[in-house]
């Protein structure tokens, strides 16, 4: 059975993970009554459940690895939030609550796959081997990205909403032209699903059968706008109209995210084109450190989602199965603290860029005006040094 047919079949039962905020719109209510079931392999209580299409068999070591990824990512994220509060970062976009969606999907990737993230994919970056400190440069204001995307096949964070889905699609078209069997994954959010670029990327990827997986983290909120303000149908169903399958997965279930993404990537590798994965999850924190979610959402909502915490869920499973002992958790705790310390020190010792960096890398082949203004600026800067003498 295909992903598409499964997704279409699951239109009646509302799952435990599908709580939505109320909307006055009759149309929105109607869509909620037909809320689809999520693909789930691990319940919020940490019980392993079976799914007819998405199965996964992981060793205890691999399970502990996923747990470690999630814990360290959350620790890194918390450290960055603190650093912003301490004035070390100008802004931070927390991924709190989305660890399973990111780690599960990213651990499905091969090294030769290529990732196009938005600006909140810290867990994906972690899995790609990008130094976490590198992610902080743009939030500290020393650069607008700063890493080499080709070092880890992890593109720069993209701030304009949805733009990167087209870059991913074009890249995937190139992969297909090259005859390679790698795949591409584009991350975006529920708000981005309203952007024309996302719709155009669906069109292009379908028309050219591009090996790309669209991984939408539906965290329920686009700053203060709930998903109901973006769509009248469940997001994964958008795919059907473009001619490729869509599937909704429990975004707080790292095993399900891994299994569903792996399946979609394999489909892309087989030359069967794109898939839309909607990871149904929740942004537990603010949109960014500039945001105040208390103005637009109720505490009860967050509390309900805390009961579905992706990390606690896997921890319960590890303990239930006897796959991790106290020593593991203690060592991980120590590793977390060491990571936090390393990140803190890395940020605080991050040098401001040289003044002349304004004029660097504007053009690959140079530009007469940039050269002229660089020389003027250098002379102006030098004039202060002369005055000082």
């Amino acid at each position, binding site marked *: 059975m295909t992903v598409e047919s499964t997704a279409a079949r699951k239109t009646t039962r509302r799952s435990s993970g599908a709580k939505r905020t109320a909307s006055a719109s009759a149309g929105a209510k109607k869509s909620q009554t037909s809320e689809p079931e999520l693909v789930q392999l691990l319940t919020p209580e940490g019980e392993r459940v079976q799914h007819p299409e998405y199965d996964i068999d992981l060793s205890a070591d691999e399970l502990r690895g996923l747990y470690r990824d999630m814990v360290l990512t959350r620790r890194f994220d918390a450290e960055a939030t603190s650093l912003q509060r301490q004035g070390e970062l100008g802004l931070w976009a927390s991924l709190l609550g989305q660890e399973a969606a990111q780690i599960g999907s990213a651990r499905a990737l091969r090294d030769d796959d290529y990732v196009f993230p938005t600006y909140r994919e810290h867990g994906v970056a972690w899995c790609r081997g990008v130094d976490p400190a590198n992610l902080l440069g743009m939030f500290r204001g020393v650069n607008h990205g700063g890493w080499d995307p080709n070092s880890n096949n992890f593109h720069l964070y993209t701030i304009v909403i949805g733009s990167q889905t087209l870059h991913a699609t074009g890249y995937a078209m190139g992969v297909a*032209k090259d005859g390679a069997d790698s795949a591409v994954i584009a991350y975006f959010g529920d708000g981005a699903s309203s952007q024309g670029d996302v719709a155009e990327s669906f069109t292009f990827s379908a028309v050219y059968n591009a090996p790309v997986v669209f991984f939408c983290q539906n965290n329920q909120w686009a700053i203060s706008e709930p998903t109901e303000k973006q769509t009248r149908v469940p997001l994964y169903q958008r795919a059907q109209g473009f001619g490729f399958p869509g599937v909704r997965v429990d975004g707080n279930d790292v095993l399900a995210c891994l299994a569903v993404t792996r399946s979609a990537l394999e489909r892309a590798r087989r030359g069967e084109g794109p898939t839309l994965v909607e990871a149904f999850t929740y942004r537990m924190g603010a949109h960014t450190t500039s945001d105040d979610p208390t103005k637009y959402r109720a505490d009860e909502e967050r509390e309900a989602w805390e009961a579905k915490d992706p990390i606690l869920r896997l921890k319960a499973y590890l303990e239930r199965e006897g796959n991790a002992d106290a020593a593991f958790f203690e060592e991980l705790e120590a590793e977390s603290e060491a990571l936090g310390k390393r990140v803190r020190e890395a940020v605080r010792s991050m040098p401001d860029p040289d003044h002349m960096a304004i004029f660097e890398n504007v053009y690959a082949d140079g530009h007469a005006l940039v050269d002229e203004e660089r020389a003027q600026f250098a002379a102006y800067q030098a004039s202060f040094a002369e005055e000082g003498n």
Partner: protein
Amino acid sequence: MAVQKLPLAKALNESLRKALETDPKVLIMGEDVGKLGGVFRVTDGLQKDFGEDRVIDTPLAESGIVGTAIGLALRGYRPVVEIQFDGFVFPAYDQIVTQLAKMHARALGKIKLPVVIRIPYGGGIGAVEHHSESPEALFAHVAGLKVVSPSNSSDAYWMLQQAIQSDDPVIFFEPKRRYWDKGEVDTEAIPGELHKARVAREGSDLTLAAYGPMVKVCLEAAAAAQEEGKSVEVLDLRSMSPIDFDAIQTSVEKTRRLVVVHEAPVFYGSGAEIAARITERCFYHLEAPVLRVGGYHAPYPPARLEEEYLPGLDRVLDAVDRSLAY
């Protein structure tokens, strides 16, 4: 035979053919560029000879065309995309300005974006709305983009290949009303640099600076002025970003008078930039303020009014007279 007489559109076609032959990473993308060969036939026959994988008919979605071209460039391809008409580029403007222009800097130079965006631009062909605009200043204003426009067949042939070879994104404005003008193309010549201006006609009393479709008008104006005993130099700027200010300065130091001519609205246009910089550079050489001739601060008018809107021979000569009267 290396020298041929070709219409400008055919010179572009030959240039694209050469680029496709030379570099297997070059791709052509756009609406109707395949079987039809483009609405102006600039890509005529290329899909037949290079296949649908190299000459790609795209969905009707400009942001998608440019956005996927960026992705292809990141994969190592050199896409040359066609925007069907000037006024249709705006759905892609976000991708061009926020992504294409800035990605090289964002990556601290670690990645390159060799994307060429071809845009047939300008008026004079009696078209409907959104088919006659000159938005070059909107692109030249954006750091990270290069903006060029050929005025003749030889430049069309060479500048397009140079744009494709550039590791920077290049917005390539094609003067659509000159597509059918024939000119000599020497396919074995050594071309000038992409961003250098060219003296199209020597003169000593005044400099007319123009690019793209207005070069021909300025050459005609210079010929008419000659009959009145005025020696007018015509500069074909060829590049709007960067602008070859050295060439303009050299000319103005000789003639001491400058009139800039373009189809785009004068307000905030490239003429304003040229006037300001040349005033700085040549303050003590100028015998008259730098004058500008161009479009008005109004939407491009319906076709029956475009002759009034576009700078023609009389408006250029009027500006020449005003400058010489100082």
